[in-house]
């Protein structure tokens, strides 16, 4: 349930200019930032005043005013205007112009010219205001005004000498602020938003002190802006301002060239004439006294408001069809979708039926169509178990695939018809273990999600999961390639899929993903996603999949990669016509989210985030699940049965025998003229041309998989040596040399153990792998119970990533042991997402140690930045230096720090945790646990430093700091109990 309304250019209503701009977001090429947990790196600080040459130290550098964030309140706004006029002279320009004597284009050009002249003659603050409204004038849309002035100043070389302050009634939500700032505004005074708050306070709609309410609003906008910046991986407002990090859907080149030349706009669209005509309509209407404010139904359906793809008729017709399993009922549903007013780009593309249609019997059978259908990722935390299982059962019976979503899956479902054949690996890594991974046919890495690219979900804690943005092991395409390799090593039989969101440049990213040896790419449109997404992401991020899909298809074909990889599309697909059009634009596989949900009984309530879903689907509430969920797998099967028939009938009408006959055949589509002036201004030829790109291979996947160049030789050798022992459940040990190109070593072994022996794995220490040398990345990733890996030497990043049991011991060669505690023995993001097992490292680790650890125990001798972020379980002992932002967002587990220099106080992120001297702990249990772990560490690694710590245990005791989450500290649970640690027989 992402956005089911038309993008601005397709809408038959008057939409704000901001709506044409879609936010850019980070996927693969750079990571999004977690603006909450890593707030320390984020800043919206804004400077007012002229910029000067930094190499030229003069007093004038001091004439700068610093604002904490660029949203002004009345006092700040007035203060800015009243600053010393020698240094902060302001000139005010009205955005209202007379449309009869001046066109929008001329008005913008004049405005920019006047601003440049003003700055050249000494003005520093340019105030643009749309406040002085009058009947015969209309306002220039604020984003266009800001953009044109910013560009004008840039061209004249005057931008650093000026600040653009925009006083506007059109900025209300974070996206609207972001557009203004991204197009070049320095600061914004949203007078109408404040007045609306005042009015609502007066009527009682809002309660409280109006000053506080307006403050809350500004804070809300601040957080929204931080989110938008971090989604793109940007830390500071100074880098964001003027960055034009948007993609325009449906703006004419004349507008883009004048106001935001760096914004990509591919399919033409509304020009100055169309925009001006919209503004005039809005203005004319506003001056009619009896007109009430329009309820526009943008967020949710309202009669007479914006069109919604899942309007009540569509939902009801579909539910009727799957209940009756009557083809005529399905036709009624399909007609209510296929014949709707233009709502998606594909609605402007019509099929050209063949002169000689085929009889239906000549078209491939439904059974050959079903494998092209997947249900989209919806996690077990978001859905009730019943709904989740119904989807899995339906897809397995049909021969399609259901998706576990993130959050893991109950192992009881593995090897039954309730198993999800697609298992998702998302940033949270909830429940991702070797056992989970080997029980899948497809492993999907969710890089981004349609409704909320660059973000996690918005499910409240009480509904189960908390998702957050970055994959801590993906900061570049190389990292993604490594993760794909990790997955292929642990489950060589599975296809690895990467889910991307349509956005400018997605084709290039997809090529990178294909070269990283993914087998499948999913392109999600802005209309994909859940009802549990932040509104500003639902509405303003991502673009229609028609654009992203065609671009991706073209990029893959041009790089001779298309035939090696399956291309899936996901986003608002409902009927056979949608499927066929997507096929023509380059897809061969199709993800369905909302359709099957509605078939199960979802009524599109858009309250998924509240846990009170009355249809028992998107809720964990027991009563609702038990008494009010009536979703049968048969209904989902009926839906897909209809879809397959619908697809086959359309294929027959196109004269196509097989689905693959239409992939990339964009000559089968023609652009319809469209009803509104804006629709008529669109040019969809670029989409059709992209889809039609050809090379010497087929335009669809013809290969079984996309095997990596690195075949994982060492993993093969180890498995060959240990295979008999694994099958007979015997003890085994082996010795191997390792080099830094030996990646993901141990993963294949772990996969085999999980396959043969399930989640419980083998007896502790039953399989022992002795390695010496320098390990490549991901040593011991997905390690399972029963496997001990002992490495003498050192390791790269991701040691023990996703391990669920067993042990990894990193030791330093005897000769260097004295200096081991000062040596970094393993790289970044070790133990990321681990759920169990132990890691002992005779040395320091890199950054982001034990992020999202939920059960592993570890002893290390130093850590970098962000250690133990989001940790929810397990015990980590750090006997050495630590870095900033320690234990950010840590809500479970415990942390022991040997901290003689008092660094903990400086580096700890105290939001969720509290630190106290270990000595002062009331109960002895934590001290006993610590000593046992350190003793084991010494016995396994031979750590010199550990030995010294043990020898002077009583003396050093006062230097230990004990860190636990505040909620646990209050309950005292963890400190009282002896948590059973599995300790090693030395």
């Amino acid at each position, binding site marked *: *349930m992402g956005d089911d309304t038309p993008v601005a250019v397709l809408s038959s209503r008057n939409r704000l200019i901001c709506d044409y701009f879609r936010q850019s977001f980070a996927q693969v090429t750079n990571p999004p930032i977690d603006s909450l947990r890593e707030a320390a790196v984020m800043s919206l600080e804004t400077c007012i005043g002229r910029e000067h040459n930094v190499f030229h130290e003069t007093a004038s550098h001091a004439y700068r005013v610093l604002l904490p964030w660029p949203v002004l309140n009345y006092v700040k706004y007035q203060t800015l205007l009243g600053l010393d006029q020698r240094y902060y002279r302001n000139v005010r320009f009205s955005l209202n112009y007379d449309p009869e004597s001046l066109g929008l284009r001329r008005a913008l050009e004049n405005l920019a010219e006047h601003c440049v002249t003003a700055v050249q003659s000494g003005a520093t603050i340019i105030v643009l205001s749309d406040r002085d409204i009058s009947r015969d004038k209309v306002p220039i849309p604020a984003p266009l005004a800001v953009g044109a002035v910013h560009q004008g100043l840039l061209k004249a070389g005057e931008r650093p000498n000026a600040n653009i302050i925009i006083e506007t009634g059109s900025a209300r939500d974070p996206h609207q602020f972001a557009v203004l700032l991204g197009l070049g505004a320095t600061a914004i005074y949203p007078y109408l938003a404040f007045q609306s708050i005042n009015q609502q306070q007066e*009527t*009682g*709609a809002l*309660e409280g002190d109006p000053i506080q309410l307006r403050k809350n609003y500004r804070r809300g906008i601040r957080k929204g802006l931080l989110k938008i910046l971090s989604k793109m991986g940007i830390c500071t407002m100074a880098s964001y301002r003027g960055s034009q990090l948007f993609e325009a859907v449906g703006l004419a080149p004349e507008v883009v060239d004048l106001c935001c030349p760096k914004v990509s706009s591919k399919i033409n669209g509304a020009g100055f004439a169309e925009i001006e005509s919209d503004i005039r309509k809005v203005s004319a209407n506003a001056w009619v*006294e*009896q007109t*009430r404010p329009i*309820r526009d139904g943008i967020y*949710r*359906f*309202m*009669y*007479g408001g914006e069109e*919604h793809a*899942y*309007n*009540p*008729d569509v*939902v*009801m017709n579909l539910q009727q069809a799957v209940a009756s399993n009557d083809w005529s009922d399905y036709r009624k549903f399909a007609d209510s979708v296929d014949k709707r007013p233009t709502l998606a780009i594909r609605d402007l593309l019509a099929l050209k039926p063949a002169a000689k249609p085929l009889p239906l019997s000549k078209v491939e059978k439904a059974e050959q169509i079903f494998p092209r259908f997947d249900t989209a990722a919806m996690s077990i935390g978001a859905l009730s178990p019943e709904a989740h299982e119904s989807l899995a059962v339906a897809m397995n019976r049909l021969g399609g695939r259901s998706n576990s979503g993130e959050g893991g899956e109950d192992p009881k479902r593995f090897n039954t018809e309730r198993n999800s054949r697609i298992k998702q690996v998302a940033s949270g890594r909830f429940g991702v273990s070797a056992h989970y991974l080997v029980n899948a046919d497809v492993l999907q890495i969710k890089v981004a999600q349609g409704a909320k690219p660059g973000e996690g979900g918005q499910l409240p804690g009480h509904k189960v999961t908390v998702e957050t943005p970055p994959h801590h092991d993906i900061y570049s395409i190389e990292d993604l390639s490594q993760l794909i390799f990790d997955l292929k090593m642990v489950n060589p039989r599975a296809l690895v899929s990467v889910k991307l969101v349509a956005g400018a440049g997605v084709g290039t990213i997809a090529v990178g993903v294909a070269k990283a040896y993914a087998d499948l790419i999913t392109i999600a449109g802005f209309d994909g996603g859940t*009802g549990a997404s932040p509104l500003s992401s639902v509405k303003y991020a991502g673009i229609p999949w028609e654009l992203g899909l065609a671009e991706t298809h073209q990029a893959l074909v041009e790089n001779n990669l298309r035939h090696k990889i399956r291309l899936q599309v996901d986003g608002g697909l409902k009927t056979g016509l949608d499927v066929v059009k997507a096929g023509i634009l380059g897809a061969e596989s199709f993800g369905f989210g909302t359709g099957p949900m509605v078939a199960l009984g979802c*009524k*599109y*309530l*858009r*309250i998924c985030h*509240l*846990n*009170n879903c*009355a*249809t028992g689907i998107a809720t964990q*509430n027991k*009563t*609702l699940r038990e*008494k*009010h969920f009536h979703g049968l797998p048969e209904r989902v099967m009926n839906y897909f049965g209809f879809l397959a028939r619908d697809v086959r009938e359309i294929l027959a009408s196109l004269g196509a025998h097989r689905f693959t006959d239409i992939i990339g055949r964009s000559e089968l589509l023609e652009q319809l003229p469209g009803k509104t002036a804006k629709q008529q201004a669109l040019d969809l030829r670029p989409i059709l041309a992209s889809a039609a790109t050809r090379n010497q291979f087929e335009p669809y996947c013809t290969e079984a998989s996309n095997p990596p160049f690195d075949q994982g030789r060492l993993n093969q050798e180890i498995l060959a040596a240990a295979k008999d022992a694994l099958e007979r459940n015997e003890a085994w040990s082996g010795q191997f040399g390792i080099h830094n190109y030996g990646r993901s070593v141990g993963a294949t072994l772990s996969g085999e153990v999980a396959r043969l022996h399930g989640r419980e794995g083998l007896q502790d220490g039953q399989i022992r792998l002795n390695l010496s040398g320098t390990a490549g990345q991901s040593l011991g990733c997905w390690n399972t119970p029963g496997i001990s890996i002992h490495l003498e030497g050192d390791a790269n990043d991701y040691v023990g990533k996703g391990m669920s049991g067993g042990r990894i011991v990193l030791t330093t060669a005897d000769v260097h042991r004295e200096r081991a505690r000062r040596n970094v023995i393993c790289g970044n993001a070790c133990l990321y997402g681990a759920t169990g097992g132990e890691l002992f490292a005779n040395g320091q680790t890199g950054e982001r140690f034990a992020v999202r650890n939920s059960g592993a125990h570890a002893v290390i001798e130093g850590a970098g930045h962000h250690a133990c972020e989001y940790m929810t379980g397990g015990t980590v002992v750090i006997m050495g230096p630590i870095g900033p932002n320690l234990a950010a967002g840590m809500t479970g587990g415990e942390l022991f720090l040997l901290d003689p220099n008092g660094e903990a106080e400086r580096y700890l992120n105290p939001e969720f945790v509290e630190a106290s001297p270990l000595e002062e702990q009331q109960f002895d249990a934590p001290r006993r646990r610590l000593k046992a772990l350190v003793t084991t560490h010494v016995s396994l690694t031979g750590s010199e430093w550990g030995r010294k710590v043990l020898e002077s245990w009583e003396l050093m005791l006062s230097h230990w700091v004990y860190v636990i989450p505040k909620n646990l500290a209050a309950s005292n649970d963890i400190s009282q109990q002896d948590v059973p640690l599995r300790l090693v027989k030395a």
Partner: protein
Amino acid sequence: MTRKFDHFAFLSRSREDPDVFPLKVRRSEFREIYKPYSQEEAADQAERCLDCGNPYCEWKCPVHNYIPNWLKLAGEGRILEAAELCHETNSLPEVCGRICPQDRLCEQACTLETGFGAVTIGAIERYIVDEAFKQGWRPDLSHVRTRPWSVGIVGAGPAGLACADVLTRNGVSVTVYDRYPEIGGLLSFGIPDFKLELSVMRRRREVLEGAGVHFRLNCEIGTDIQAHELEHMHDALFFGIGTYQPVEASLPGMEKGGIVPALEFLIGQTNHMYQLDIPGFPHINLAGEHVMVLGGGDTAMDCVRTAIRQKAASVQCVYRRNRENMPGSPREVSHAMKEGVKFEFNAQPLSLIHQNRKLTGLEIAKTRLVASNTGRARPELIEGSEQVLPATALIFAFGYRPSPPSWLETIGIATDESGLVRMDDHLPGQTSNPAIFAAGDMVRGSDLVVTAIADAREAAQSIIQYLEVKEPQLRRA
């Protein structure tokens, strides 16, 4: 003031209709059977609304009321704003709250209807408007710019009142003509007081007059004033005069008497209760009679329940199909049953039985339902199932047909063969005479009050559009 919103109220709190008066009172008194909600009760029930992403209630409602929005306001105790919002889409919300068949419209569409019990939308709507009026609230027309137009509205029923309301809110001056002494048309006379008390319409009259609507009552077109005179007096006309011709039955024995016409029966009761002295509608008292009502719609229910209150000896309703297939509101049927009406379903009347020129019974035959290609099951007689039910008074309530007055033609309003006013396809509600508009039952055929309101509101917008275009000519004239 506002309380913390409970997202699980629909689970923890069951649907509770307002309390009803005890049966003893209900069976004897002509007054609304529901007591009003208390503020607490209304808020508790309003809070059950899920505020769905797809407001099915709003979708199903013919006037598309902003139901979730005003439920939320009611839940927060912001009654005046709620009343304001109710009036944005509906001209007579307090009437619809009482007599709309919510169980076939908004409440049937409510997401909670399956498994939880729908939100009591109708009762809350009634509460909001009654409470707002009680607190002195009146529609705020201070921002309205007066326009130099005058529109004549014939018929003060739901369509006419809705049209008058919309036009007034747009600054148009309005005169409403009606032949009865009270406004409301069938709302006042046809609908008995146990569903809608006359005082409600009297209050609405006061509100409309306060807003500037001028009423000319006891004024019959064609008698007191001629239609073409109206044409000269106003810039545009609107007709909403309903359908009054009862659907006739023809059964052997009808000519021998014992038949009470449904509408006369209902209007006579109101006429009598309020001493209105409307000629032609005497009080028909069925006390002590064995009353039999034929038909299954809302009028039939009004008749049986009126007869109960008149102390009839027995009251029975005979309907050709089964209960599920009744065209009226199931809620009304269940009220009638509780109040003591007996139902004879699947029964087709055959003939009237008289003894000594007095009606004594009705011969019926049982029916069974068979599928038909019209979509609705067709009753088929079961042979040999004939029987006689005792009856001394018989009321036919088979609905109403168009009854276009003869003068319609003289002012250029065309009707179709069934007598319904033909719509020009230019503007919604515009008749074949471009200056004359019409809506309600006379256009659509017998239908709900709320559909008449919906159509009339749309027609009012058409009138404004029409006058805007025509204004230059009007000024010249």
